[in-house]
């Protein structure tokens, strides 16, 4: 099923030249990790993001 685009967008950039993942929650919180499982756990903890929030 397809719904119109929403503002609830999570983004994960794999930083070129590194093993680092940089995540941005739709609330603006950001997080860095080298583990995609931990990245999604962090994303889904919204709005209770822990550590590294900027």
């Amino acid at each position, binding site marked *: *099923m397809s719904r119109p685009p929403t*503002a609830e967008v999570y983004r994960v950039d*794999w930083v070129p030249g590194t*093993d680092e993942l940089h995540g941005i929650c739709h609330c603006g919180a950001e997080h860095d990790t080298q*583990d995609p499982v931990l990245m999604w756990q962090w994303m889904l903890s919204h709005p209770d993001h822990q550590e590294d929030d900027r």
Partner: protein
Amino acid sequence: MPHTTAFARNQWYVAAYGTEVGRELLARTVLGEPIAFYRTEDTGEVVALADRCVHRRFPLSQSRLDGDKVVCGYHGFTYDTTGTCVYVPGQKRIPRTARVSSYPVAELDSFVWVWIGDPALADRTTIPRAPHLADSGHWTTVGGMEPIDAGYGLLVDNLMDLSHETYLHGGYIGTPEVADTPMTTEVDEGAGVVRVSRHMDDAECPPFYANSTGIKGRITRWQDIEYHAPCLYLLHSRIAPQGVLPNPDGTDPDAFHVEITYAITPSTPDHVYDFWAVSRDFGHGDEEMSTFLRDFNHEVVMQDVNALNLLQKTLESEPAGYQELSINIDTGGLAARRILSRLAAEGDRSASPDNVAR
């Protein structure tokens, strides 16, 4: 415990290409539900009925049509397009419960979509679109369908992480740059869409594109995945001579564009229909190119089919609780798994309010 992905009900799924459905009954099993498809005689509308006669469960797909009615091949129970039984042999009274389910269907973009779930919730405007498939003025399309003896989650995993092209499809569509290039993953949670973009600035041109575009040297290769969970997967592929980019106004006359479409339709917990299509915006009317792309992509699809058949068998023999290891290339696949898990839970909740508490 076998590796399986939960079904997401109350969703649209591709059951067939429109060209597959006609005046012969077609059997497909979608989310474990056997369904018989056919077209009506006058209007050509697609009808989808449960593929089991209420009498002794004989498959209606193995029966025959009488006009727009299906006559069971065993004892002649006859159903109209709504699934209502209108004739039983030897007696006038037709039991009140003599009907089979009919499924909401929609024919869009060359696909026949079927709604699996509560028919009252079926909204055709929510079907994700692949307009290039039916736009023969701008796109030339080849395609096919391969059944795979694997859970549909394995095919989603496969398609969300294209780094496997380098290894499983090396010499076909894979080059070293695919696995080596970092990608960006976006999840639109509300829309249920996962996007994975991998833009290669300077890459080897694999045979699939070298032979079809005629580019001899290195290329700029963009792969932009758009996965509309659970069924429709679009890969927007852009190929251009190395360094050639779109114009500032968005036009892109010096690139070759290929839309790779997959419909991922769960059949049973360990069986999935893999509908695939390759649409190009060049070489229109070039039958030789169409044959090349169809045959070549079919080989690529079969490499996936063989790998996933093997993987499913292997996982079924694994002890319960086996571990996986995910790395950066799996970021998009993990996002897709999570969306599917949410959709499955939502589908279960609307199917049975009692499930909410579990």
